[in-house]
């Protein structure tokens, strides 16, 4: 430390602060993805439950592929915009998006190819598990909001299991408050 002046030390600490705060801030970038996919998952599960309860006709399910296409299109367009961002993606951001896409990709793949194994509510529960993995990954970087929202998701899973008559409502509430809610909070916190 003898060869470092106070002015240099201040300059170095400021640089370290900048780099670390950029890493922290980068985890808020995905807010819109959480919101979009959280709302999509909520809509899917809620629609299914309402059909099961005969509150809406079964042909209402046609809206789900439309919503899925909208969520995929939004993610692709927004992901492309972020990729073209002047500063590019930070290191932690890349790691975060890798976990996000792998978790959601595995959930979607499982839903599509193992539909006989994961029937009805199990199919929705897979998305809850994938979403919880993503949130706990973010929580591992010191984000307490992600930890709280991850716990909400796991809580909804337990509630869905214990309340057979309200399984869909419990899972939908988990995705709405845990996943879409985290997206909304992240978007607000970014500003």
């Amino acid at each position, binding site marked *: *430390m003898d060869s470092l002046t*106070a002015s240099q030390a201040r300059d170095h600490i400021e*640089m370290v602060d900048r*780099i*670390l705060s950029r890493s922290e801030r980068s985890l808020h970038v995905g807010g819109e993805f959480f919101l979009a996919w959280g709302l999509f998952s909520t809509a899917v599960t809620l629609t299914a439950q309402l059909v099961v309860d005969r509150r809406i006709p079964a042909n209402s399910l046609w809206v789900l592929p439309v919503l899925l296409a909208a969520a995929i299109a939004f993610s692709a367009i927004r992901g492309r915009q972020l990729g073209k961002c002047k500063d590019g993606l930070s*290191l932690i951001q890349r790691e975060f998006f890798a976990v996000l896409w792998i978790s959601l990709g595995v959930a979607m793949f499982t839903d599509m190819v193992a539909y006989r194994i994961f029937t009805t509510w199990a199919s929705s529960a897979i998305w809850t598990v994938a979403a919880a993995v993503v949130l706990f990954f973010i929580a591992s970087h010191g984000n307490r909001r992600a930890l709280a929202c991850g716990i909400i998701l796991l809580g909804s899973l337990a509630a869905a299991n214990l309340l057979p008559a309200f399984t869909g409502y419990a899972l939908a509430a988990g995705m709405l408050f845990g996943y879409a809610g985290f997206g909304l909070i992240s978007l607000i916190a970014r500003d």
Partner: protein
Amino acid sequence: MLSKIRLGVIAELLNAEWVAFSDLHQATQATHGNLGAHLAKLVEAGYVAEEKVFVNRRPQTRYRLTKAGRSAFVQHVRDMQRLLKGESA
């Protein structure tokens, strides 16, 4: 660790797993030669681990912070904060 580029590299590696040379180059804005020399010193000191891998059939050199590097970084930041406190006292 006294060099600004070396400190910047360690700060970039702090929250990541393996980081490619090209990413560090983009983050630090140092020249290839300069960054390479600083990374070699960090590897030699045992603060950073180096690995050569193939990504899409292209060779890539990537780096990760070691436990010794993390400890040295924390100690260095503490030393700098102490220096600043001493100056303001």
